[in-house]
């Protein structure tokens, strides 16, 4: 292999590895605050069922864990219900979807439940 070809390969390799970083930096600009999801304000209540910080990390536990108990094992009367969430967070597109599309994670709730 000649030197030019080798150098081209070296540059390509480094560029490939750096590509995601360059994509983000170029697309969002440098020295500007990183984008964050903008969530619709909750209605009907000022506090969630658990502290907001805990909910950010663990809300899926409530949802999936209780799903398993309720739907698969028929245990009724748990503390939280997804309908309960919807009483405050009324618009899925302006609440759930904002974070989920930000993080590239697909929620499973709406495979069954319909939320406007």
């Amino acid at each position, binding site marked *: *292999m000649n*030197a030019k070809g*080798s*150098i081209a*390969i*070296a540059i390509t*390799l*480094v560029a490939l*590895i*750096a590509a*995601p*970083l360059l*994509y*983000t*930096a170029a*697309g*969002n*600009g*440098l*020295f*500007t*605050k*990183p*984008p*964050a*999801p903008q969530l619709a304000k909750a209605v009907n209540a000022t506090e969630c069922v658990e502290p907001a*910080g805990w909910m*950010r*990390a*663990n809300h*899926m*536990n409530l949802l999936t864990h209780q799903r398993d108990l309720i739907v698969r094992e028929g245990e009724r009367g748990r503390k939280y219900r997804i309908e309960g969430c919807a009483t405050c967070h009324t618009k899925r597109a302006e609440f759930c979807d904002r*974070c989920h*599309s*930000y*993080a*590239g*994670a*697909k929620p499973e709730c709406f495979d069954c439940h319909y939320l406007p």
Partner: protein
Amino acid sequence: MSGLSPLSLVYAVLSYAVTAVFFGGLLHKLWGYAVTPNPLNIATTPAPATRGGVIVSNIVNIATFSSLFKGNRWTWIGGYAFHVILLAVFARHLRLFLHPVPPLLVLIQPVALLGALLLPLPLIYLLARRKAVDRYAWISSPADYFVLVLLLLIGLSGLGLKFVSHSDMVGIKQFLLGLVMASPVDMPPHPAFIIHFTLVLMLAAYFPFSKLMHAGGVFFSPTRTMVDDPRERRHVNPWAAK
């Protein structure tokens, strides 16, 4: 960087330092591989007699580890499984660095998650292999175990983050984007994430100075990348040429 918590400040500085070491080291090494001449044609034959043939044979080897397959099926199974899974795990993590997230990355998440779940298996297998066969035990140094253990810990801490001790993914992504955009924000002070992130920084800093450079070196191996045409085309030695 003003207004950052002390912890975030430390990690922001560390992250930039490691990134510099990683890319600096990588460039330095790859540059060395690229510009150091091949004074003689040392293709291991039988080899393709055309440049196109060499490119194809290298793509096949890199994509399938065909020469390792020829060498040892048991090592190939573990090594190949590990590398494919690693690729899936990389793909899975890209969503934390890209904004907005390309739809394809969302689609592959389930497959990639399966990869992440399996990651410890080939690593444990590869570790056991080094202990179980006398030849491999003889050639294995602390450095060889270190890399495997480090990768295993990264995998396990990652799984812990996913399944045991959740953390605020939106906060993590914001932190990572902040780093990439040269505008650091606070890191979620979540222990599982801090452990996972620290181990990854260690791996990245270690990478260019270790055998992990095989990942770049494989593209430059003279016995594999030279065309078997010395009689047809005069290969000129750059340092001996007048």
